[in-house]
C-alpha cells in the first residue's frame, strides 16, 4: 500500500494549483487512483451475505473475505492482530465477523465493505468468543487475565467482566465458551476445573452460577439444540456433561475410563469441540491420548462404539446432514484427513489434501468442505460426495475457515 500515499499527495498538490475548469479532469483521476489501491471488491452492487465467509491468514494478521457461490476470495482485510489462534462469530444479520485473536484483540470486520469496522485489544491473551442470542452482546474468553468480558456488539464498548477467580485466589484460563438461551453464556475453567454459567440479561450486572466440572477442561461444546454442554477433559479419562434443561442436577461424567487404564499417547495439539460433533442421535468425540473417535448415544450418553483413526484427532466434524464424519489430526500427522461413514462406523476414505490441515468448514448443507493447508499456503475445496478436490484458493498460512451460516446456529 506504500504507493498510495505519494499518489495522494501529488493529487492534492495538483488540485491546489489547478484552475476550477481542470477539476473535472483531476477528480476522476483521484477516484481512479484511490480505488486502484483499495481492497474493497470492485463491484459495489447490492448483495447478500449468506454465501460469505472469512479465512484466517494466521501469520500475517489478515483475514480473507470469501464467497462460496463462485468459490472466490473477494478481499483481504489487514490489521486484525496476532492470529496464532483465532476464532470468529458472526452478527445475527451476517454482515459483521467478530474475530478473536490470540493477542486479546477483538476485531469487528465488515464483510460487505471488506474493512475493519472497529477493534479493541481487550486482554493480554485470548482464545475465542461467542455472541448472545439477541446479537447485542459479544463475549470474549480469555487466558490472561483469565475470565470473560462482555462487549456491546455495535460499539465494542466494555459492558462487564467476570474474572475466573475461585476461592483460593486461583485465576483460571477460560475455555469452551458457548452461547445459551436468555443471553447466558457457559464456559469452563482450565485450572479450577469448574463450569460457569453467566447470565447477561442485565448486561452490566451479570450473574454467575458455578458447577463442578472435571480436571483440566480443554474445550467444550453445546449441542445444536442448546440442551447439553459437554466439556472435554485433559486431566481425566472422561468428559463432563451438564443437562441444561435440568440444571439442578449439576454435571455428570460421561465416557469415564475410555482410556481403559492404558498410558495416554502424546497429544501434540488439543482437540476442538463444537456442536459439529452431533450427528443424528450420536455424538462423535475425539479421544485424548488415544487415536480413536468415541461414539456416544445422545439419549443414554453411553459409549456405543469407537473408531480407530490415523492419529490424535483434532476436529471431528459431522457433515451437516450427519451422514459422514470428517477427522483431521494433530501434528505431525496433520497432512491427513479421514472420513468415517456414520452407518458402518468405519473409515471409508483417507485423504491428503495438503500439508498441515488446520481446519475444515462445511457449506451449510454439506455438499462441499473447505480445508486449510497451512504449509502449502492454500485452501482446498472438496466435493464431499466424490471426495475429490474441486478448487484451490491461494491463502497465506491459512488456519480457521468460518462461513456466515454459523450466524444462525447455537454454539457457533
Amino acid at each position, binding site marked *: 500500500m506504500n504507493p498510495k500515499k505519494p499518489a495522494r499527495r501529488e493529487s492534492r498538490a495538483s488540485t491546489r494549483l489547478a484552475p476550477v475548469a481542470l477539476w473535472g479532469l483531476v477528480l476522476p483521476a483521484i477516484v481512479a487512483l484511490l480505488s486502484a489501491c483499495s481492497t474493497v471488491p470492485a463491484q459495489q452492487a447490492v448483495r447478500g451475505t449468506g454465501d460469505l465467509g472469512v479465512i484466517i491468514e*494466521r501469520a500475517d494478521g489478515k483475514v480473507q473475505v470469501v464467497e462460496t457461490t463462485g468459490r472466490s476470495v473477494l478481499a483481504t482485510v489487514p490489521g486484525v492482530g496476532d492470529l496464532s489462534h483465532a476464532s470468529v462469530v458472526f452478527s445475527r444479520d451476517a454482515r459483521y465477523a467478530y474475530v478473536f485473536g490470540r493477542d486479546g484483540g477483538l476485531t469487528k470486520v465488515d464483510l460487505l465493505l471488506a474493512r475493519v469496522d472497529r477493534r479493541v485489544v481487550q486482554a493480554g*491473551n485470548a*482464545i475465542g468468543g461467542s455472541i448472545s442470542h439477541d446479537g447485542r452482546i459479544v463475549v470474549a474468553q480469555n487466558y490472561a487475565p483469565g475470565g470473560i468480558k462482555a462487549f456491546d456488539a455495535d460499539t465494542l464498548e466494555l459492558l462487564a467482566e467476570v474474572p475466573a477467580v475461585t476461592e483460593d485466589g486461583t485465576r483460571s484460563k477460560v475455555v469452551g465458551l458457548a452461547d445459551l438461551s436468555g443471553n447466558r453464556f457457559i464456559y469452563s475453567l482450565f485450572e479450577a476445573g469448574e463450569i460457569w454459567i453467566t447470565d447477561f440479561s442485565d448486561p452490566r450486572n451479570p450473574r454467575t452460577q458455578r458447577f463442578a466440572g472435571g480436571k483440566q477442561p*480443554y474445550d467444550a461444546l453445546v449441542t445444536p439444540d442448546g440442551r447439553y454442554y459437554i466439556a472435554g477433559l485433559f486431566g481425566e479419562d472422561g468428559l463432563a456433561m451438564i443437562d441444561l434443561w435440568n440444571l439442578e442436577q449439576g454435571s455428570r461424567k460421561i465416557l469415564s475410563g475410555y482410556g481403559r487404564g492404558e498410558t495416554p499417547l*502424546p497429544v501434540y495439539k488439543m482437540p476442538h469441540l463444537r456442536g459439529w460433533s452431533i450427528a443424528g442421535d450420536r455424538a462423535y468425540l475425539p479421544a485424548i491420548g488415544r487415536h480413536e473417535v468415541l461414539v456416544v448415544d445422545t439419549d443414554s450418553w453411553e459409549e456405543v462404539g469407537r473408531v480407530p483413526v490415523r492419529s490424535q484427532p483434532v476436529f471431528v466434524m459431522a457433515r451437516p446432514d450427519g451422514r459422514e464424519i470428517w477427522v483431521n489430526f494433530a501434528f*505431525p500427522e496433520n497432512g491427513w484427513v479421514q472420513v468415517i461413514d456414520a452407518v458402518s462406523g468405519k473409515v471409508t476414505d483417507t485423504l491428503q489434501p495438503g500439508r498441515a490441515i488446520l481446519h475444515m468448514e462445511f457449506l451449510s448443507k454439506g455438499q462441499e468442505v473447505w480445508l486449510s493447508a497451512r*504449509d502449502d499456503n492454500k485452501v482446498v475445496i472438496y466435493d464431499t460426495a466424490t471426495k475429490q478436490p474441486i478448487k484451490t484458493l491461494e491463502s497465506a498460512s491459512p488456519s480457521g475457515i468460518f462461513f456466515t451460516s454459523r450466524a444462525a446456529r447455537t454454539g457457533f
Partner: protein
Amino acid sequence: MKNPSFPSDVSSVLLLAAALAVPAPLFAAEAAPAPDPLRARELVHIVRQDCGSCHGLTFAGGLGPALTADALAGKPAEGLVATIVSGRPGTPMPPFLGIVSEAEAVWIVDQLMRGFPADGGAVPAAQAR
C-alpha cells in the same frame, strides 16, 4: 551444597573446581552443533507454528507458558531441554523426542533464549522429508 559422601573440605573445593570447569553456557554451545540449514528452517517452522499452537506464534503464551527470551531468562537450559524431550507430566506438554532429537532440543532452547528466529515458512514440498 555439602555432599555427605565427601565430608572433607578438600573434597568440597575439588567439587567446586569441577563445577566451575564446566560452566553452563558450554552445555548448549558444545553439545548442540547447529542443524543443517534445511533442517534448521524446518525446526524453526515447527517451533513457531506447532509449538505456537499452545505457546503462541510470538511465544507470548497460550495454554502453555510464554517462551520469549525474557520469559526464559534465568531458567536453566537443561531443565528446558528436558521439558522438550520428555514433556511435563500432569500438564498438556507432550514429549517431543522422536520429532526432534536431544541435540536439536538443545539447539532449540539455545535459540529460544537468544530470541527465536522468524519463521521462514515450511520447507518447500520438493525438499520436505
